[in-house]
């Protein structure tokens, strides 16, 4: 069988001299692995976070299969000059590798990752796009956050908190007496399109991090959160 798709390279492990086992996050096919036979002139033919067109072929659906790839867009160059962008790209790849199962299509999340890699080279944009990526990921793994309306009173005003259990917004009056148990509804979460600085992003990531850890708790080895922890440490270092 054979299919074609576009995807982002999540892993590329050498297999022998001129072959690689590649793992790609495809728009239509989710995470898929395959043997990549082409060897570049300078070692690896592609690198992580490259956007490629994929042709996958195997005798059966459940076999490893072989990839043929064509480059579409290079990984963000800002990774080589801005360590926060590097950490952000690593975190996003690591979260997808950890939370998305093989062969599960996550079209919205793919578009979020694509937007993130495109925005990574723009200093003013990447924080917003990264936060929106985490919100998309949470929605895809069953922790969608509903931050427009109070879960207790139904009010659209005075929203100050997020319920740590449901991920829904809670107003000041709705949280009365339980404020200490609530997560803050930060300015970044209220308006993810306008996260301009590290401090805003850190505050929002503390809330999304609560739900990511909750989701990771169900998994055997949540090692994939390490890259995200590196990102938050780096943001804290510069924000303090």
């Amino acid at each position, binding site marked *: 069988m054979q299919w074609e798709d576009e995807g982002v390279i999540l*892993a590329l492990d050498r297999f022998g001299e001129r072959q690689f086992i590649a793992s790609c996050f495809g728009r239509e096919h989710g995470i898929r692995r395959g043997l990549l036979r082409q060897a570049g002139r300078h070692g690896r033919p592609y690198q*992580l976070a490259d956007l490629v067109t994929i042709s996958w072929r195997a005798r059966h659906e459940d076999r490893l299969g072989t990839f043929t790839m064509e480059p579409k867009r*290079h990984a963000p*160059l800002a990774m080589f000059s801005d360590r926060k962008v590097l950490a952000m790209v*690593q*975190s996003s*790849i690591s979260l997808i590798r950890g939370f998305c199962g093989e062969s599960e299509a996550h079209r919205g999340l793919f578009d979020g990752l694509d937007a993130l890699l495109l925005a990574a080279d723009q200093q003013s944009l990447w924080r917003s796009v990264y936060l929106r990526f985490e919100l998309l990921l949470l929605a895809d793994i069953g922790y969608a956050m509903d931050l427009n309306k109070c879960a207790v009173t139904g009010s659209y005003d005075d929203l100050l908190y997020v319920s740590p259990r449901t991920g829904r917004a809670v107003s000041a009056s709705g949280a009365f007496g339980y404020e200490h148990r609530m997560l803050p509804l930060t300015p970044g979460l209220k308006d993810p399109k306008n996260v301009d600085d590290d401090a805003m992003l850190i505050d929002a990531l503390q809330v999304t991090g609560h739900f990511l850890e909750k989701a990771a708790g169900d998994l055997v080895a949540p090692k994939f959160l390490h890259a995200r922890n*590196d990102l938050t440490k780096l943001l804290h270092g510069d924000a303090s």
Partner: protein
Amino acid sequence: MQDQFQVAGELDRLIKILAKLPGLGPRSARRMALHMLTRRQEVLEPLLDAMNAVSETVGECPNCGNLDTRQPCSICVDERRQGHELCVVEHVADLWAMERSGAFQGRYLVLGGLMSALEGVGPDELRLNRLQTLLDGGAGELILALPATMEGQTTAHYIQDMVGNHAVRVTSLARGIPLGGELDYLDDGTLKLAFGSRQNL
């Protein structure tokens, strides 16, 4: 159905070991084994002698991680080399590539890998303690000859942090158009990097 031909036990073992070497598969390993056995005196015995000698004498240099018959290695003990320039590479193969080029006349440190947040490879798994010692010993320039990959850049950032307050100049190799490279065949990323680091003529 006729049984497939199987070579004898020890020979089969040799072929399986050879097939695991870089660049070889079972077919080329069989050819190689047959070639050695049909030319015992010219090929097999000298090869055995050479491999025994290498196995007994070659070791990892305690200073830089290079492989050599001398400990410390011939590069580390060479007094003509500039001791204040230190080139950091990932593997011994990279050190040898640098030596082939003759571009560098200082000393080296082979890290033995790269840090990776994705694969969980941390600084403890690399030869970074040795780097700390060399920094404390007064290295003047640290040249990071690491691959232009996510892992290479993660390691470079970590080393920059290690350097901290030491009065050490940290540089990295230039990135751009390879010698003989035609623009039409270069990937967009390399072209952008090359454009960003253009030079006055």
